């Protein structure tokens, strides 16, 4: 199996998930789903894929996800954003001055809730540019941090893009570059990022997945992805590869 950007991202996100008990992934999230399946292969993590009835055991309709997240029964969730800013605010609604948007995007989905109650939310946005990673989002679908009196057991832990991996420091409300694509360096990342961030002194190019990881992806990640995200799997995992 060749290390495509998608395979690299799946491996990086699975390392971030680690030995979690339960990971849920939403629609249109094949890369996070792949990472969750890899975590399942490694640690026996329970994986819920919301839009795939064979990969979820909810019997109380679409509210069950939010009810069980509110009870602390989901450890890791993934969110993205049209825009993500330096304090980890995310915007899934659109650009321009709300409600007179110049460009409308789908909407906030469950982000304004899940960002608060899921202990570790990993932000994933493949496009890394000053257009997507901005100083201040045009619309806050969900804030990156909250005042101390707000009930918030959860929040952002990391941000992964096609170029870089940042860790988020909740206390300082600031991202810290911890790894980057081998073709990049801190200066290039800075030029591609619209917000200010710190650089970890141990920041290094991210590691390429090892042979054992690639074997797990081929045997235990590609098959469920073919079922849940056929178009994505067809593009990324050539048949029999």
């Amino acid at each position, binding site marked *: 199996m060749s290390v495509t950007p998608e395979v690299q991202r799946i491996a990086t996100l699975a390392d971030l998930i680690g030995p979690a008990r339960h990971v849920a992934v939403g*629609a*249109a999230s094949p890369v996070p789903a792949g990472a969750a399946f890899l975590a399942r292969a490694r640690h026996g993590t329970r994986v819920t894929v919301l*839009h795939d*009835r064979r990969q979820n055991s*909810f*019997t*109380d*309709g*679409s*509210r*069950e*996800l*939010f009810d069980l997240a*509110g009870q602390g029964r989901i450890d890791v969730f993934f969110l993205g954003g049209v825009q993500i800013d330096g304090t980890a605010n995310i915007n*899934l*609604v*659109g650009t321009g001055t*709300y*409600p*007179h*948007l*110049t*460009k*409308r*995007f*789908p*909407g*906030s*989905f*469950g*982000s*304004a*809730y*899940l*960002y*608060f*109650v899921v202990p570790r939310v990993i932000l994933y946005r493949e496009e890394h540019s000053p257009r997507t990673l901005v100083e201040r989002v045009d*619309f*806050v*679908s*969900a*804030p990156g941090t*909250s*005042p101390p*009196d*707000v*009930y918030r057991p959860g929040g952002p832990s990391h941000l992964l893009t096609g170029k870089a991996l940042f860790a988020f420091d909740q206390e300082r409300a600031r991202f810290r570059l911890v790894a980057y694509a081998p073709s990049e360096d801190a200066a290039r990342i800075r030029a591609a990022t619209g917000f200010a961030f710190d650089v970890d002194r141990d920041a290094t190019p991210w590691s390429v997945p090892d042979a054992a990881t690639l074997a797990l992806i081929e045997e235990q990640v590609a098959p469920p992805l073919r079922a849940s*995200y056929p*178009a994505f799997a067809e593009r990324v995992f050539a048949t029999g590869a």
Partner: protein
Amino acid sequence: MLTTLEGIAQAIPDGALVGVPPDYSGVAMAATLALVRRSARDLRLFCLPQGNLHADMLTGAGCVAEIETAAVTLGEQGPAPCFNRAVEAGRIRVKDSTCPALHAALTATERGVPFLPVRGLLGSDILAHRPDYRSIDNPFAEGGDPLVLVPAVKLDVALFHAPAADAEGNVWIGRRRELATLAHAAERALVTVERVVEGSFFEREATAASALSSLYVEAIAEAPRGAAPLGLAEHYEPDVAALRAYARAARTEGGFRAWLAETIGEAVPA
């Protein structure tokens, strides 16, 4: 109680607040097309919790004045082109929300209480633009602990599609419990089904547990493949080719009108 698709479309007056389910649940697409055919106007859609082809098509056809939702998208097929155009042109009002708040609004009506509290939302621009949502401090805490109150929403109509109805007008919804929530919170539930069967789902506990009682249902129309081109669990998968064709056509106003004219078999006035 048994009616036709046209009967269902006639039973939804212009201006009605209509609750609809998400794409994976049981969308009454055939009845939605009947609404377009009867040139419904000024509908207010309440998506529990997000809209797909149904919301986009109704918006493109000029049937919608307002949408309350957590999102509108065509899922794997990408953005919702008619919805996005209408928002950018200021042709519709959007009451942006988040999934659990939409559930809370209808659940409050189910329970007969004026509001329900929800976590999250604080510090978001969703809350900033929802004057109908309030935040209070938890009255059971020592102090602080703010949380958001969502007022109950009573729907005029719930409109959805399900696998079957029985001879008594009970509807089998399986584990798609948001359909029950929509029906419970609506003045009238209008339902299309794949087929009407003999007997009663309440004769057996296995079917009773996943049935919606006729007590909540005003009218039922038989509509085989009534959710297509969206899917219906265990009955048919989403028709990906048809959904892609829609997504492609609807990228332009003209393309959408041509798609709609072909789909409903008559020209649609701009």
